[in-house]
């Protein structure tokens, strides 16, 4: 496992040295932070390279960092059936900036991207069907953003209909 990760790091570094902004190791997991421009090239390379063969997109999700200048971080998790290893690719984007879609590479990416769009409001460029997927019709906002309130109801100690429970936003 560890050797295969080292190999991945070396090969990707050779090929896309400029596109890789940061490499990190944590608990035997390999993470690349890459530039948005080279995202699609790197994903295709990882998938099609005869040595690496990260042919399976396990997960695609995002995290939200409102304090950073580029608040959206889209996370791709790739898996190789040959070396049984995962590699994580991240790109960052400013609010309102579109990230290129990976739905041309894996069908499942389009499905995940809709979820990311719905929950985080990251738009993907070239996605065939950029619509909300989970939240209710007419829902406003993107629930998994940090500045979206959980919106909970305070416990109610009265049975009176005239005193509806307080909703905290």
């Amino acid at each position, binding site marked *: 496992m560890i050797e295969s990760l080292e190999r991945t790091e070396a090969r990707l570094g050779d090929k896309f040295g400029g596109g890789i902004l940061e490499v990190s190791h944590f608990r035997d997991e390999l993470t690349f932070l890459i530039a948005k421009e080279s995202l699609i090239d790197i994903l295709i390379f990882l998938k099609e390279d005869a040595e690496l063969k990260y042919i399976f997109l396990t997960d695609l999700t995002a995290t939200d960092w409102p304090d950073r200048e580029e608040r959206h971080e889209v996370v791709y998790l790739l898996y190789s059936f040959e070396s049984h290893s995962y590699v994580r690719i991240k790109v960052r984007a400013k609010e309102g900036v579109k990230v290129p879609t990976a739905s041309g590479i894996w069908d499942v990416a389009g499905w995940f991207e809709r979820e990311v769009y719905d929950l985080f409001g990251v738009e993907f460029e070239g996605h065939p069907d950029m619509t909300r997927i989970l939240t*209710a019709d007419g829902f406003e906002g993107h*629930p998994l953003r940090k500045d979206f309130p*959980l*919106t909970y*109801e305070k416990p109610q100690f009265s049975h009176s209909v005239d005193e509806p429970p307080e909703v905290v936003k």
Partner: protein
Amino acid sequence: MGLEEKIPEGILLTTVDKMTNWARKSSLWPLGFGLACCAIEMMSTYGPRFDLARFGMEVMRPSPRQADLMIVSGRVSNKMAPVLKRLYGQMPNPKWVISMGACASTGGVFNNYAILQGVDKILPVDIYVPGCPPRPEQLIEGIVKLQEKIKSESVRRKKK
């Protein structure tokens, strides 16, 4: 609808009440749909070990037009709420609602933006069954309680 409208105003009924209530309580037809985890426990209740058929209500109706009991089994999301309301509207009178589980009754552990905090905000609930999920025995107890409630109703006073 039904019996209620056929009887003119100003008449007291005792034996007819008893008979209709007995008929209604012994053949409750639940609407066969499930929402979340509680639905699996509801299915266990229909299943071989707990066997709801003993209480005369194992006939699950897939269509709301033929059902008179709605068991709200699980959490109701804001997206599902209008659908649920419409399903309730499609059921013929008289009809009853059981709210099964903590989520359906109060929102349960999910006190957040997505879940309706209690199905009683949109439907008139007759019986609340607590638990997460309620055991099948609890659900049966709830249904038996509902039968008792039906027994004490009058054809004249049943809510529309």
